[in-house]
């Protein structure tokens, strides 16, 4: 908690420096968040070059609206909210359904989602861990974007459920439920792979 507040304070200080005309301080902000932002974006859009463009675009948008940032909020939350809106807009333009989770649940899963016992051998018997990682990355591209981004935030960016809930303005319970849904969807699809 102490470390988190010191991070927030550091971000606020950097923003103040940028706003007072010290443009170079923004490069420190970029260096601090570029890797986590790029990892989120590259796993939600799929293509590396596109992800690089989007990461740049998000930093530019953040810089341009820096005056509207309110210091009582967490900078990471604000940054990832901008990123999420950019990505959702991109998928909307591509006319991919990002709205109905329940419809997607029906479309992507053949078994009832809450059932725990699966048919066939377990994934631990079929795959080595490095192989399973590759499979997760492959399947991740096929799950609905609104589940994918929550999964990425939780497992790649290592955000807490509370932080995700703050970014998406959702109740924590809903976030947990959707992240579990994403995990089950990925796991079942890997199990169905030949």
């Amino acid at each position: 908690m102490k470390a988190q507040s010191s991070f927030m304070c550091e971000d606020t200080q950097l923003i103040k420096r940028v706003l007072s005309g010290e443009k170079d301080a923004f490069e420190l902000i970029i260096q601090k968040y570029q890797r986590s932002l790029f990892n989120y974006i590259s796993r939600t859009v799929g293509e590396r070059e596109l992800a690089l463009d989007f990461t740049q675009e998000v930093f530019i948008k953040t810089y341009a609206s820096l005056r509207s940032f309110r210091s009582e909020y967490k900078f990471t939350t604000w940054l990832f909210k901008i990123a999420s809106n950019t990505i959702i807009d991109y998928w909307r333009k591509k006319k991919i359904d990002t709205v109905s989770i329940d419809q997607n649940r029906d479309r992507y899963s053949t078994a009832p989602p809450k059932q725990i016992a699966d048919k066939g051998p377990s994934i631990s018997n079929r795959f080595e861990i490095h192989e399973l990682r590759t499979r997760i990355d492959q399947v991740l591209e096929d799950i609905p974007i609104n589940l994918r981004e929550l999964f990425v935030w939780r497992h790649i960016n290592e955000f807490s459920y509370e932080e995700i809930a703050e970014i998406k303005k959702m109740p924590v319970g809903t976030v947990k439920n959707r992240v579990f849904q994403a995990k089950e969807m990925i796991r079942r699809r890997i199990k169905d792979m030949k």
Partner: protein
Amino acid sequence: MNCMDADRIYLYLEEELSAQEKDLVEAHLLICDTCRRAVEERRFFLEAANSLPKAELPVDFSQQVMKALPPLRNRALGWLTAAASTAAAAALMWLTIFLLTGDTLSKSLIALNQLLWNQVQSFALIFVKVFKVVSLLLKLCVRFSELLFNSFTSLTKILNPEVQILLITLTVIISTALFLGAKRFIFGEK
């Protein structure tokens, strides 16, 4: 305890359960093979999900972004721009007058001053007339209300309270009817 659903397994593995709930789950796992296998399956999956490889950026990425940044909008600069635009518009106006009339700046300013003064004078005359009419109307209103108040006071002295109440009620009804009638007459039927 019944067998666990997937959500509960994840809550258990991610240590999101209370101590009491965790104890219940662990007691159940000791006696249920199906749930134990399900938990191990998800534990292995989570281990892989939590250690996915991180994508790397080009070394000069931050410099590239810095080059692409637009100028930061400055509020003070906004006011300065507005002031500069006004000054430029005034200069342009003077230049136009100069080109059309051939007058120098001082002559143009005097002419502009006279024009403005004439406008103020004519506006002042209109303002005085409007003021006179409005004050006359106000005086009339005051007289009328005084008359109304005096007649009401005289009536209360002459008439007994029951008749007064009756008269007030009738007045209210007639006024409302007149108001509604006038409204319908002005705005038409609805």
